[in-house]
Structures are given as structure tokens and as C-alpha cells.
């Protein structure tokens, strides 16, 4: 029985390998991802003005679409999608009058007539499913090719962790979920002080010097602590951190695919690891 899954626009195109490896890994672990039959962009940023009802239509529609599956959760891989959808869920729960307006507005669209979000579906991240639904012990038992000797620095970035009151995935200052995953895969997690520091995010498009500086510091810190690679859950972090090939930046699903021996086509592990500038 699969979990409804929202890939988001980037995973469908520029970060297709994240989506592919994610789906393959989930299927191999017996917890397949069922992509929502009809979805659209989540909005890529949570609108911060108090009067944000209009801007929440997009992510709210995703929740509405997810609720039609009658499942309890809708899962994500992209950290920005996770953050936007989770915060939307939180906002709609906190402001029932906002939810009512959105439900009404969406119902005026004939393609979604009669569909509402009632709060039954919760947004989760695939990491959460691995930790809470499968468990690290069970995961490590499925690993056929432990990533022995591979030193990987878990990089959380901003959106998997903050704001802590709304996201609640892990401790915002000392998270361990990715390190626990790496341990379960037989790899050696490398703790470093910049694991939760911002990569520069969307400034990549209009102020590229800022992400370059931030990401350079992050990658250097990871390298200094002995990391051979950095693992992330966000395509934008992956893009920003990939600073002139200083260190391979992998999605956690690629490491999972490697450890579960799903093949190089799925994991892209070898090709990514070999791209390192010496």
C-alpha cells in the first residue's frame, strides 16, 4: 500500500534523478510512493504576509488533491515542497476561516468541484517515514551493500528544520535524522558545524555571489571535517553546494539506492562521486 507523494516541479525536471531514486528506493523497501494523479507547483516559498490566503491557494490545492486519496499522509522529497506544504497545513489548521475561504474558492473551479481539505491528510517527509514507519534497524537489515568507509556529511539546510514549531521533523540545532540514516546504511556520518546553515537559496538567480560565499564556507567546513561527500534533501541546496565540484553533493535517496543495490542507473552514485575536482 503506497503513500501519496508530491514530487514538485523541480523533481520532475531538473532533479529527476532525485525523484527516480526516491521512487525506486521506496518501492524496494515496500513503501512505494504513489505520485498524486493531478498536481501543480506548491509555490516554492511560504508566503509570509498575514494576508496570504490567495498565495496559499497553490499549496492548499495540493493538500486538497492529497485528501482525495483518503490516505493519512502525503509525503515529499523536496525540502522546499515539504516546508511549504507543512506550513500551509499548519496555517490552515490554525485559521479555520482561511481554510473555509480556500475550500470555497477551489470549489468554484469545475475541475475540483466538491473537493475540500478537512485536515485529515498530514504532510510528511520521506525521511520521517524511514525513521518512524520503517525504523533504522529494519532499514539496516535491508541493506545489501553497506556503504562502509564512506564519510558523508549530512546537510540539512534551512527548510527541513525551521521554523521548529511548525516543521517539527528534528531538533533544529542538533538534528540527527540524516546521520541516523547514514549509520543505518553503513556509512560514516561526519558532523560539522554548518549542517543547518543557509546555502543561499533563491539568491542563486539574482545575487549569485551570496550563495557562492555561503556554500563555499559550508563545503569547506564539511571537507575540513573529513567528509568525502555531502548528502542533502533539497535540489536547490544540491545546486548551490555544487561549488566547482569541490565535493560530490548527493541526494539521500541516491545513497539509499546504492546501499540497496538498485543499480547505477538509479543511484547515479559512481558518476556523481567521480565528478570531484581533486
Amino acid at each position: 500500500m503506497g503513500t501519496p507523494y508530491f514530487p514538485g516541479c523541480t523533481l520532475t525536471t531538473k532533479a529527476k534523478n532525485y525523484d527516480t531514486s526516491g521512487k525506486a528506493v521506496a518501492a524496494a523497501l515496500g513503501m512505494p510512493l504513489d505520485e498524486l494523479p493531478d498536481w501543480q507547483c506548491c509555490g516554492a516559498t511560504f508566503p509570509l504576509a498575514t494576508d496570504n490566503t490567495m498565495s496559499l491557494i497553490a499549496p492548499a490545492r495540493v493538500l486538497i488533491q492529497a485528501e482525495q486519496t483518503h490516505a493519512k499522509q502525503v509525503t515529499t522529497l523536496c525540502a522546499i515542497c515539504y516546508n511549504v506544504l507543512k506550513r500551509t497545513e499548519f496555517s490552515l489548521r490554525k485559521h479555520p476561516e482561511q481554510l473555509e475561504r480556500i475550500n470555497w474558492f477551489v470549489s468554484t473551479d469545475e475541475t475540483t468541484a466538491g473537493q475540500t481539505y478537512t485536515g485529515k491528510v498530514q504532510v510528511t517527509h520521506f525521511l520521517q517515514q524511514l525513521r518512524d514507519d520503517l525504523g533504522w534497524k529494519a532499514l539496516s537489515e535491508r541493506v545489501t551493500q553497506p556503504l562502509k568507509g564512506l564519510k558523508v556529511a549530512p546537510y540539512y539546510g534551512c527548510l527541513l528544520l525551521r521554523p521548529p514549531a511548525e516543521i517539527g521533523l528534528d531538533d533544529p540545532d542538533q538534528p540527527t535524522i540524516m546521520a541516523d540514516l547514514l549509520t543505518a546504511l553503513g556509512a560514516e556520518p561526519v558532523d560539522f558545524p554548518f549542517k543547518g546553515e543557509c546555502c543561499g537559496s533563491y539568491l542563486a538567480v539574482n545575487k549569485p555571489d551570496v550563495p557562492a560565499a555561503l556554500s563555499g564556507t559550508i563545503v569547506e567546513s564539511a571537507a575540513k571535517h573529513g567528509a568525502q561527500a555531502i548528502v542533502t534533501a533539497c535540489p536547490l541546496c544540491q545546486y548551490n553546494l555544487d561549488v566547482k565540484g569541490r565535493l560530490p553533493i548527493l541526494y539521500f535517496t541516491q545513497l539509499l539506492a546504492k546501499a540497496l543495490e538498485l543499480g547505477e542507473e538509479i543511484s547515479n552514485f559512481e558518476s556523481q562521486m567521480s565528478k570531484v575536482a581533486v
Partner: protein
Amino acid sequence: MRIRLSAETVHGDFVKQVEDISGQNLLACNQCGKCSSGCPVAFALDLLPNQIIRMTQLGLEDVLQAQTIWTCASCLTCVSRCPKNVDLPRVMEALRQIAMERGATPMYAAELRPDLVANAPQMAIIGGFRKFTA
């Protein structure tokens, strides 16, 4: 140049508008500086986050000229650490919206570097445009 403060500035329309859009009580900030201490982009700012809040508290509208509000990456570190739970990202968003309402155009599609637009994941383009265009 002397700055004249009065009830009209410190509790005037500008302050009220920022508080309305952000939903924050600006005076809860006691200027401890923890936000600025942890801001990852502080090196690229003209005014520190706490200074943005300070100027807004006093109703000094030239805070809208600061580069800071456009360089904020919404990393949310400041609000996570703030002892008074002042939501700076929301205040930054309010200032951006007021600035754009008054005619600021921080991002022009035509002026973006084509290689960045082509290579960056689209979530960056969508997010950036939603933040920096009206």
C-alpha cells in the same frame, strides 16, 4: 540631519502597516542582537537585521531603501533563535511588499543572467520571483 520623532512617526501609518502585514508587535524586540549574530548573509548586508527592526520601530521610512530586505534569504534562523519570538522574516516580507507597492523593482526578468536562469532549479526562480516581484 536631525531625525524628529513624534507620535506620528513611532505610532504612525508606516509602523501600523508593517505590523499589520507582518502580524508582529515590533516593540517586543529589545534589540538583543541575536538575530544579527546568527544571520548567514550578514556579510552582504548594509544594515543588520536588528537595525532593520530598530528603524521600523521608530517609523523611519528610509529603512525601505536598505539592501538588506532584498538580500534576506528567508533562512528563518533569526526567528528560531529570537528570545521574544519576533518573526523577522515576516517583517522583512512586509517591508518588501510596502517597498514594491511604492514602486521598487528589485528584480527584472530581463536583467537576470541567462545562464543562471537556465541552470538554476526552477524552485529558485519561482521562489525568487514570488519574493521580489509584486
